[in-house]
Structure formats: structure tokens, C-alpha cells
């Protein structure tokens, strides 16, 4: 079961934040087909938001073919966003953690790390992922 949260400073509207969190969990394999999403009530209560927002997010996910509402049972994951690359995630995560430790030791704050990663990724893609 995954937990949702809302970033109050984000410019992304709340329902899309929830949608993105499910997509993210599907990409990383945290959610797999067959898993049940928390009920609308559980999300409304834990995130403390309007249940209509949760409904809207679930409808969007259903529309994208990622989840399916089953009457009386709940909302279940039916699609996946995890590509064949998922198998290499664990090793890459280990290397990334080692790199993050180095960055931290070098005195980089989380914002510095995000900026460095963002600009490097951008440049890498501009070079055509050589």
C-alpha cells in the first residue's frame, strides 16, 4: 500500500500530484498489477483533502488504463509503467547512494544536488545520450 502526500508549494494541482505519485510508484515497481490502492476515504483522511480530489485522480488513472475500480472491492492496479530496465534499478540505486554520500561529504545541500543532477541530465540528453 502506498501513502500519498501533497506539496503545498507545488504549482501542480492536487489531483495531478496524486496521479503523478501513483505513476512514480508504478515506474519504480513499488506498485505492481494486482495491488490495491488505498480507498478514497483513507486518502482523504490521511492527506486531509477533499475526497472529490482523490476521486478525480483515480478516475484519471483509470482513464489511462493504469488502475481499475472494482465495485465493493476497491481500486486495483492493472497496468505497469516499469520497463525492462526495472531489473537494473537496485544496482543503480546503490551506485547513486554512494554518489550522494560523496556529494554530501563535499558539502552539497539537497538543492545543490538536485540542480547539479538536473543540469547534467539536461546536458546529457542534449548530447544525444552519447
Amino acid at each position, binding site marked *: 500500500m502506498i501513502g500519498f502526500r501533497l506539496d503545498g508549494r507545488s504549482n501542480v494541482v492536487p489531483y495531478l500530484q496524486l496521479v503523478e505519485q501513483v505513476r512514480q510508484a508504478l515506474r519504480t515497481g513499488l506498485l505492481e498489477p494486482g495491488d490495491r490502492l488505498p480507498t478514497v*476515504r483513507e486518502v*482523504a483522511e490521511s492527506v*486531509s*483533502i*477533499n*475526497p*472529490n480530489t482523490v476521486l478525480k485522480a483515480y478516475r484519471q488513472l483509470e482513464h489511462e488504463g493504469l488502475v481499475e475500480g472494482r465495485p465493493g472491492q476497491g481500486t486495483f492496479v492493472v497496468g505497469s509503467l516499469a520497463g525492462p530496465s526495472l531489473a537494473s534499478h537496485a544496482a543503480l540505486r546503490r551506485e547513486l547512494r554512494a554518489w550522494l554520500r560523496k556529494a554530501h561529504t563535499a558539502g552539497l545541500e539537497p538543492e545543490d544536488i538536485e540542480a547539479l543532477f538536473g543540469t547534467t541530465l539536461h546536458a546529457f540528453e542534449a548530447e544525444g545520450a552519447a
Partner: protein
Amino acid sequence: MTAALETTGLSKRYGRTWALRDCTLAVPQGRVAAVVGPNGAGKTTLMRLAVGLRRPTRGSVSVFGRTPRDDAASLARVGFVAQETPLYRDLTVADHLEMGRRLNGVGWDQPSAAERLGKLSIPLDRRAGELSGGQRAQVALTIALAKRPDLLVLDEPVASLDPLARRTFLSELMGEIATRELTVLLSSHLIADLEHRCDYLVILSDARVQVLGDVEELLASHRALVGPVDAPSPNGSIVSSHSTDRQRTLVVRSEARSPAPPPWAAQPISLEDLVLAYLSEPGAGTLPGPEGTA
């Protein structure tokens, strides 16, 4: 579909003072409507008229198509938690439930009320006077919900609570809304508490309706523009304007999602920004209608 709450030219006068004037609004069913405005703007008066505790001086009010007060059937559909969540100090929580059961008869949902209080660890044998503010608010909400209302009216229910108790109360409320067909009218001074929880907005100012509408639409049709203090004013109606010696910050209403005219930079705004912009400019207003502005 019939509106949960509909008022037409609704006005209430106490002595020489108009507490509410020409209030025309319709809150659709299933919404969580925020009622905000400065003290004395008419929030409590509107709520008391909606639940039938006051009679209009002029105009009309209807709840699911019926006039409150005039018939018991419409009152049975309304739950009300007044300001300061009043309970009888010397009566226990169980006494309050028993009173609710006797007064409400068949519609009263005793099992769910008891279950709710159990989940919140509120002892039934405790006197109301010995409960914390947060617990009193929860008991008052439980009683209002046990009537199985279609419209729930909450007048500043969290005003006196600490931040954690406020969040608990509002989270519980969101959960309850998820499980039943319920329209909520919720007033609060703490706009941050309403953000992401309310999807309909009523701003009252000086006894009149100043802003009315769907929160998502209102946020999509307003934005903040930041620019140099000497920049020419952009198109669109300006709600509020604040300047320092160099910079001017505007909240504007502009339907088009067009890029900001240079040198202005556009930023989306929060519900709190929107409410504060209108409250700081009582002359500005946004009401639904052919022209969009009033």
C-alpha cells in the same frame, strides 16, 4: 439537480443593522463550501438562516428545495455545529448521544456515533466539561453526523483548537464526506485550513456576497503578476495591488491562460492569496453570471 442550499435576495436585519443583504447564492450538492469573510460580514447569520434558527427579514432561503424551519422534514436533513461547539458541561458524552437519539428518533445512527467516538478514544462516561477542546469539537461533529444529514453546517468549528486537533478534526471530516452523500458549509478564519479541502467558495464582505464560485475555476482564472513599480497596468481586471518602492504585485482576474505581458511575470495563486486579495479590496467582486464580474 436541486441546490443543497439556495438563497435569493436573502437579507437579515437586527435592529438598524443589516447582518446580511441581498445574498443570492446556490451551493451545489456534494460540495464542501467555504464561507469566509471578516468578523461581522454575515457568516454566522447566513448559517443560522440556512439551518432555520433565524427567519429572513427579506428574501428566501431553501435547503434541498424546502424552506428550513417551516417543516421538520427539511430540518432532519441538516446537521449544525455552532461556534464554540456548545455542549452541556455537566452531561456526559453518553447523555448527549441519548438526547440526540430521543430528539431525532428513527433517523439517528447510534452505532456509528458510538463507533466514531470509540475510534477517537473519547470516553462515553466523561462529562463534556472535562473534555479537551478538540474532543468537544469531535463530539459536536459526531452528534451532527449521527442525524445522517444531507447538509452539514459548521460555524468556525476549529477556531479554538490547536494545530494538531484542527488537522485531526478536518481529516476526520474529509473521511466522513468520502463515505456519504454530504454537502458541507464550513466557515473559518484560517484560510490555510480550507485549502485543498473546500471546492466551493463564498466570500462575504460587509453583509454582502463578494465572491462566489468553484474553487478550481477561481484559481484558474486568477493569477499574481509581479513587475517593476512603473510598469503599465496589464489588461484584465485588477483585484488587488501592492507596491514596494521598486516592485508591484497584482492579483488579476484574466480568463485567458495567455503568457504575461512583459515586463510582468505571472505566478499561480493559492486559495489563501485569492481570499486575502479580495478581502483587502472590498470593492472588488466576482460572481457567476453572463458578465462574470459584478
